[in-house]
């Protein structure tokens, strides 16, 4: 009897493992794959518009926004229902976007129009545009919500936008074909990855001066084969993860010293990476091998690669 009571107590007191769900945009399947993080299994696929790439959660984490590059819109996915429940305008060819921390606005890069469009979520309309360089792609917003960064692939610049006045603050030159941008957790640094040069450039956001550059070397792979794309920052600010594209690796970087701590072998051509809420697992979306890789950060090993569809591109982890 005592054992039974103890067992019941244990069952009540020990909180169940937090269920998390991984969402992966399949660029060529026009779906968002739904994967259960705990069991590492594919659960379903949500039908979305054509060429889904960039994704982001709403601030309340109940909605997933998906940029549909070939449909010129953003689909609104209700995560409880797991289906598209609405649409937002995005301007032409949206590839990547960010949700402003106030939860009201979305900033979208319009690849073909050299614009950043600002979308009001509640009103479902574009309330402004900002002119940026050629082929804008990477988007980031600082935690305090004041600054939005946008990279332009062809101009090789990162543009800083005042989120309040929607005006350009500055343009900073970076290495060839910048892809992703990310603010450090404290907002003092801006990290920009360059796809063709295979580097990450770090700027001080106060002085806008370059304070660091990270080179990646994968033994046995020629330099052109190492490209830097998606960036993810750990919540404690100590680590950054960068997807190295055709090198099939994810780099783990010490943000203090700007040195690569280790490389993880994942599937072919990872585009983007996402950290789980407990910061113990990193997921990469591998575009060419059609799978996602689960990296156990505690044991520093890749534990599984799971097929999810054709052309995985973006990855978001939600409740």
């Amino acid at each position, binding site marked *: 009897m005592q054992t039974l009571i103890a067992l019941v107590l244990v069952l009540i007191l020990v909180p169940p493992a937090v269920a998390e769900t991984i969402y992966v945009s399949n660029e060529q399947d026009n779906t968002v794959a739904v994967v259960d993080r705990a069991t590492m299994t594919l659960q379903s696929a949500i039908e979305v518009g054509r060429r889904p790439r960039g994704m982001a959660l709403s601030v309340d984490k109940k909605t997933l926004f998906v940029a549909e590059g070939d449909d010129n819109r953003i689909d609104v996915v209700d995560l409880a229902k797991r289906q598209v429940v609405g649409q937002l305008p995005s301007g032409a060819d949206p590839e990547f976007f960010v949700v402003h921390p106030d939860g009201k606005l979305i900033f979208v890069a319009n690849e073909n129009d050299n614009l950043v469009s600002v979308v009001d979520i509640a009103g479902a309309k574009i309330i402004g545009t900002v002119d940026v360089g050629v082929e804008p792609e990477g988007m980031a917003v600082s935690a305090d919500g004041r600054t939005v960064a946008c990279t332009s692939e062809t101009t090789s610049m990162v543009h800083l936008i005042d989120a309040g006045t929607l005006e350009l603050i500055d343009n900073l030159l970076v290495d060839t074909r910048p892809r992703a941008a990310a603010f450090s957790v404290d907002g003092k640094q801006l990290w920009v990855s360059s796809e063709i040069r295979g580097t990450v450039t770090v700027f001080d956001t106060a002085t806008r001066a370059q304070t660091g550059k990270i080179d990646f070397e994968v033994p046995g792979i020629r330099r052109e084969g190492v490209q830097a794309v998606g960036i993810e920052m750990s919540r404690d600010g100590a680590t950054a993860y960068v997807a190295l594209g055709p090198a099939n690796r994810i780099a783990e970087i010490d943000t203090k010293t700007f040195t690569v701590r280790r490389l993880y*072998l*994942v*599937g072919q051509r990872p585009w983007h990476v996402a950290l789980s809420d407990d910061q113990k697992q990193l997921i990469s979306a591998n575009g060419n091998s059609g799978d996602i890789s*689960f990296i156990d950060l505690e044991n520093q*090993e*890749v*534990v*599984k*690669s799971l097929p999810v569809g054709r052309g995985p591109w973006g990855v978001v982890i939600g409740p």
Partner: protein
Amino acid sequence: MKVHHALRALDGILRREMLRSLRQRARLFSAMVRPLVWLAIFAAGFRSVLGLSITPPYQTYVLYEVYVVPGLAAMMLLFHAMASSLAMVYDREMGSMRLLLTAPLPRWYLLAARLLASVIVGLPLVYLFLFVARFWDVRPPILGYVAVFPALVLSGLMLGAFGLLVSSMSTQMENFAGVMNFVIFPMFFTSTALYPIWRLAEAGPVLATIAAWNPFSSAVELIRFALYLRFDTVSMLVVVACLVAFFLASLAGYDPGRGLWARRGGEG
């Protein structure tokens, strides 16, 4: 056959094997260096920096080093089994094996004891190699090192029984080069030790078929799966069946009354 008598004989055989193995420093050393050369040099040439396709039991992309380690562990068992079987020829020629076979215990028991002793003596080196391989980032789960123990013993026994069979057929101890050429290399190269079966199938369906039927492949896969905490039933059954078949055949070979020994005139 009394139990304590049988145990004493096993103890004696085990000690003798251990003593011999420890005295042969050069052989111990080369047994350790051989797989490391394969891992450090051969595997480096096949590094497959972009990762090998997912093959069970692996659940993700692995480097070639990771793939080849279980095969090299099995290779150590294979070399050990063959060297030990050649030592059997020496024993028989020099009379100590003959002495052993005259002990008042059943012949099958003495041969099985000799087989088991040989496997047990060979295992520490295999474990040493598996731990050294961690420096090449080949890091199976810790429990895998426990799970692989029965797989290594079973595979070692099967290869040892095969070695007994080979030694029962050979007449002189200078045969090691022949055994290398006609037994070890063909078995090793036509197995899944070095390449996954899909890669062999790309090279030629015949090669893939040979590899699939090669009992050494089963030993390799049994070890590979166990190391990653998986159980490969088919490989296990194949290894056990081969163990029984080889052992029975070698028993016939070692029976002075009939079999190959008699045909050779029972010399030695």
